[in-house]
């Protein structure tokens, strides 16, 4: 069998696939963070907990209500997004006029509370969530085996990311969002309901996290800590892409997943830290991030 740079192709493509899977989650989660940061100027540390809530709502919907995976893909983002809207209305709005740091501290505290509540109720060992029968099995591509569910995760996250990008960059609603991000006072003076946009944007960003959580449920076990573990990496992705940059979040998310996967092949010891090394380098060379605008 041929080898690429001394690595068997199955190992290489296997890690590329794993990288793309991780990249899919990085992309959706960093996209949600970027959308929220862009309009609300809030570094939403609750994002990881909201991703975890998405997975849990899918698990609860299945086990308590008998709703399958496909229903959960719709229901969980709506439920968790509604919780997000309540958080924005009741808490975040009150500190909107204060420094970013207050938003970060508030959302960090909320994340700890939410994770604690779920850990108390469901423990830390994780709950199983089966792959939907329509997506079980896989395809033998000759050079590697491609599990159907993993291919679906990549495709679904690409569609959601590009759909979100299109919504924000190419539609009238998106132009309202961009205008409100840039100059909320003037945008409001044109008759546009900016507070409602802020609420819906936060709800949408949170719903994206929940959608990623449902996608993740069959791959990783449904665990109260699943968001906390991931969110630190996702923040690094957002910083590398550029805070608030939509395309930056998507491209950087997928690209860094791939880089991480390839690092696992060629230098496994560096796989856990490569994203943070890149973050440091980007901050030194281009502090606004690869796709961010210089302040």
């Amino acid at each position, binding site marked *: 069998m041929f080898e690429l740079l001394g690595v068997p192709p199955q190992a290489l493509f296997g890690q590329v696939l794993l990288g793309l899977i991780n990249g899919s989650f990085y992309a959706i989660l960093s996209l949600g963070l970027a959308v929220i940061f862009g309009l609300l100027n809030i570094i939403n540390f609750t994002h990881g907990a909201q991703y975890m809530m998405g997975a849990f709502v899918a698990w609860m919907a299945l086990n308590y209500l008998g709703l399958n995976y496909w229903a959960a893909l719709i229901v969980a983002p709506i439920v968790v997004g509604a919780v997000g809207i309540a958080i924005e209305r009741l808490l975040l709005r009150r500190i909107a006029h204060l420094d970013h740091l207050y938003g970060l501290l508030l959302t960090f505290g909320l994340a700890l509370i939410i994770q604690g509540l779920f850990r108390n109720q469901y423990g830390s060992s994780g709950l199983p969530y089966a792959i939907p029968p329509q997506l079980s099995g896989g395809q033998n591509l000759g050079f590697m085996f491609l599990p159907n569910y993993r291919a679906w995760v990549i495709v679904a996250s690409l569609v959601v990311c590009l759909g979100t990008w299109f919504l924000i960059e190419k539609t009238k609603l998106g132009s309202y969002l961009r205008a409100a991000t840039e100059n909320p006072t003037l945008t409001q003076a*044109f*008759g546009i*309901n900016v507070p409602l946009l802020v609420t819906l944007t936060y709800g949408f960003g949170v719903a994206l996290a929940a959608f990623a959580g449902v996608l993740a449920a069959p791959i990783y076990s449904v665990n109260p800590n699943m968001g906390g573990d991931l969110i630190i990496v996702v923040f690094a992705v957002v910083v590398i892409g550029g805070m608030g940059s939509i395309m930056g979040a998507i491209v950087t998310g997928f690209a860094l997943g791939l880089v991480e996967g390839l690092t696992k092949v060629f230098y496994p010891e560096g796989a856990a830290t490569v994203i943070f090394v890149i973050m440091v380098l980007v901050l030194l060379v281009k502090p606004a991030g690869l796709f961010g605008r210089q302040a």
Partner: protein
Amino acid sequence: MATIEAVKAPAVATAAAPLLKVRGLEAWYGESHVLHGIDLDVAPGEVVTLLGRNGAGKTTTLKSIMGVIGKRRGSVVMEGTETIGLPSRAIARLGLGFVPEERGIYASLSVEENLMLPPKVREGGLPLERIFKLFPNVKERLRSQGTKLSGGEQQMLAIARILRTGAHLLLLDEPTEGLAPVIIEQIGRTIAELKQEGFTIILVEQNFRFAQTVADRHYVVEQGKVIDMIPNAELDANIDKLHRYLGV
């Protein structure tokens, strides 16, 4: 320094019922009390200017009418509707269009997106063809990023985008500031055309020579109050007084 007489400004200058009636308008930036009781009336179809020195409160008066200032008090009635407790988005929906001093062109939006951004607040906005006739430069630059336009083009875009919304009271804050004489002339012609179309305009201006070419009446603002009102026909006769007010 010239002493300012505390003249009670005649509130109503025309027989028509005012489109906008402002009484005892006070405003604050944080703790700083900036407006101390502005009184003015604007009749339908009038062009009225606010003249005054730097820091007199002209821009703050426009912002307060539009509701884009932290705290305000008094009365601002637009066509019979009291707006003092309304958010700016609701005030805009009564038919007010605002062009801020810094023009407020969005860098993240194209010229076309900037133009189409403000929602229609009522019927009667100018159709796009008419707007492009008034501002041909805007039409040529539709695909450009908003802030890539020259200062004059940005000013035209800022005016153009409120004309299609159906707003019939336009608040223009120093539309000629920093522009070349040829562009100032063009903006003067545009304001005259808009007046002919029936728009009502409140114009903040430092340049009273320009204001004289377009306005019906001039309110003089000093230290957060209206201290005089001069009909445009009487401006020449009052030129010494105006020079004293403006410190020219």
